[in-house]
């Protein structure tokens, strides 16, 4: 064939540090300290516990449509843990709760958002995150612009932007990667390949054997990592963050993981998920894997697990109390943050809505 660029027949094997049984691969040195691993595990467990809670709140009608993280905790926590929340930024899609928490977002704020209260949209000052993005891939150009701005102002900060395998088919992905390559912007593209975009399986999303194979087309490296492996994700992301911080430009990380539940609370995956595929992923659970790893090294036990679970459940309840104590939504909230100074036309509309005179 007359062609210099021929696609690989199969995807390269993802970088792995921890085997499914928790054993550390030979010859690798983890980039996380034991304390960091324990902190990561705690955050993963919090997320998992919150998923269950959110699901039940949604069923009771007290929570809006919500997408669980279940199965993808290592991917999000391992990558976000490679950041310095004081100077680095997280630009999320919508399935990255633990990354937001690690950056400093109060859980109660996240809850308020999903309770449909605009107060939950208020990102506290000094929490370096962008709002949850519902318009798929729209956050990727924004992340590149943010990274570029940090670069121009020489803050030393790095941006990590999350998006799904589905979102990676949008034009915004391409435009953003290409610009980032040209600018050598300090950004890490974190592609969470969880096998699905609602009902669309990964193989119908793209004929590329590996989505990370796109990176050279933008002039920067692409990595495929085992997304259910906290240590591998952290190592790969840390390296990408270090490169970005050093001015060496972006990296595309394809984190291969699996969405273990429905797309969101409105979805019925039994219509399309093949049970055998789901079953094959069950033993690869990212939380159990870290627990096995730590247990084998004497750093974790069932007792500890129960203590932590109790703590987390209390934490969630506390956050829920805070969220519920927030003032209820009001009509005036509609108008408060549309413009810095509401123009006369808007003041009139506001007055009419509130039943008062402008």
């Amino acid at each position: 064939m007359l062609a210099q660029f021929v696609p690989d027949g199969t995807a390269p094997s993802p970088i792995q540090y921890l085997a499914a049984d928790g054993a550390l691969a030979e010859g690798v040195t983890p980039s996380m300290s034991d304390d960091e691993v324990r902190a990561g595990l705690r955050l993963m467990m919090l997320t998992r516990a919150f998923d269950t809670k959110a699901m039940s709140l949604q069923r009771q009608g007290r929570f809006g449509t919500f997408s669980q993280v279940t199965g993808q905790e290592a991917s999000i926590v391992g990558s976000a843990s490679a950041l310095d929340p004081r100077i680095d930024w997280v630009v999320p899609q919508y399935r990255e709760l633990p990354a937001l928490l690690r950056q400093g977002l109060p859980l109660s704020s996240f809850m308020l958002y999903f309770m449909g209260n605009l107060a939950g949209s208020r990102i506290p000052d000094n929490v370096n995150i962008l709002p949850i993005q519902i318009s798929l891939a729209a956050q990727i150009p924004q992340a590149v612009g943010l990274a570029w701005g940090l670069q121009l102002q020489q803050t030393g900060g790095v941006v990590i932007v999350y998006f799904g395998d589905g979102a990676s088919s949008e034009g915004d992905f391409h435009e953003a990667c290409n610009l980032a390559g040209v600018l050598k912007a300090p950004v890490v593209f974190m592609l969470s390949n969880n096998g699905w975009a609602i009902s669309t399986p990964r193989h119908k999303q793209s004929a590329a054997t590996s989505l990370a194979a796109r990176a050279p087309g933008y002039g920067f490296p692409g990595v495929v990592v085992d997304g259910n492996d906290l240590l591998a994700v952290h190592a790969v992301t840390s390296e990408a963050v270090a490169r970005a911080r050093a001015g060496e430009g972006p990296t595309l990380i394809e984190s291969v993981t699996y969405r273990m539940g429905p797309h969101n609370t409105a979805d019925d995956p039994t219509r399309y998920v093949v049970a055998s595929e789901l079953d094959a992923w069950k033993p690869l659970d990212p939380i159990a894997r870290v627990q096995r790893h730590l247990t084998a090294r004497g750093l974790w036990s069932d007792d500890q697990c129960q203590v932590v679970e109790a703590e987390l459940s209390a934490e969630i309840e506390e956050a829920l109390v805070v969220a519920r104590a927030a003032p209820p939504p009001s009509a005036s909230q509609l108008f408060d943050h549309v413009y810095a100074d509401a123009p006369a036309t808007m003041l009139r509309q506001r007055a009419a809505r509130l039943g008062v005179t402008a």
Partner: protein
Amino acid sequence: MTATTNHADTPAFTETMTMIEAIRDALTLEMARDERVVVLGEDVGVLGGVFRATDGLQQRFGERRVIDTPLAEGVIIGAAVGLAVSGLIPVPELQFLGFGHQAFHQIGQQVARFRFRSQGRHPMPITIRSPFGGGVRTPELHSDAFEAMYTNTPGLKVVTPADAYDAKGMLLAAIRDPDPVLFLEPLRGYRLVSGEVPTGDYMVPLGRSNVVREGDDVTLIAYSAAVQMCMKAAGVLSSEHGVSAHVLDLRSLVPLDVEGLVAAVERTGRVVIVHEAPLTSGFGAELAATIQREAFYSLQVPIERVTAPDTPYPLGGTEDFYVPQISDVVRGVLTAMER
């Protein structure tokens, strides 16, 4: 329920259907009738669409005619242009109208203009289906009513049914229309609104409005989900305020039934327009502008617009303050009556 599917091609038989069932029925019928029709979009195949509008189509018509595309609205619509050039009749789905923005360049500048740009060589018999509008606490950007900007796009037809009968009959008319049609489906009506629908083939012509309630004091003009709201408001107005409301369902924004509009206005001389989209440059603006021009001397009072305010669509908790409610329509009418 007066018929079974055995009599599916006898229009005289009807069945009670929700809007979503009526839409699915139209798609099924037309795909069976015309093998050039193909359905494409995100999750339209195996899943049958996030609202099940295309449920069963892939099983029946195969993976070649009902295609789960990658997640990219621009190419869903752009590919539809090419499919049309090749001689097929594409019925792409935008999962929510909010994501039509990603395909805006393909819709506004390509689909709508291709006949013109090729001076008739390449017609575009494309029907873009999309749910829109709010009231059901969806996540951000899933509820916006962006219809008006598509009406500022010459070459495109923009229609939206308010009930199950129209949903089926208008969708059949849209797919068979030689020109591109943006077919907007009122999300909150999908399962809530139902009615008697012929099981066979029929069309509701595009471009004709429909008087859904006769009245003498005030004319309510609406389309899509707002029609049901106006009907309910008309009930309240009649029982609580002794006001008799005439209600016009536009059905089609482009082409606009100016005659029907003027007739409805002339009936009462007082007009209240209702839509979910924000006020400024919402489609109510065009309606008011047209009415004041074509029925100036019939107007007894200024035309009122009952709409969302000029703010972004908010999160669910604030939704009812944003989307016009029955009480807002009643208030708008009372304003028009008091003048």
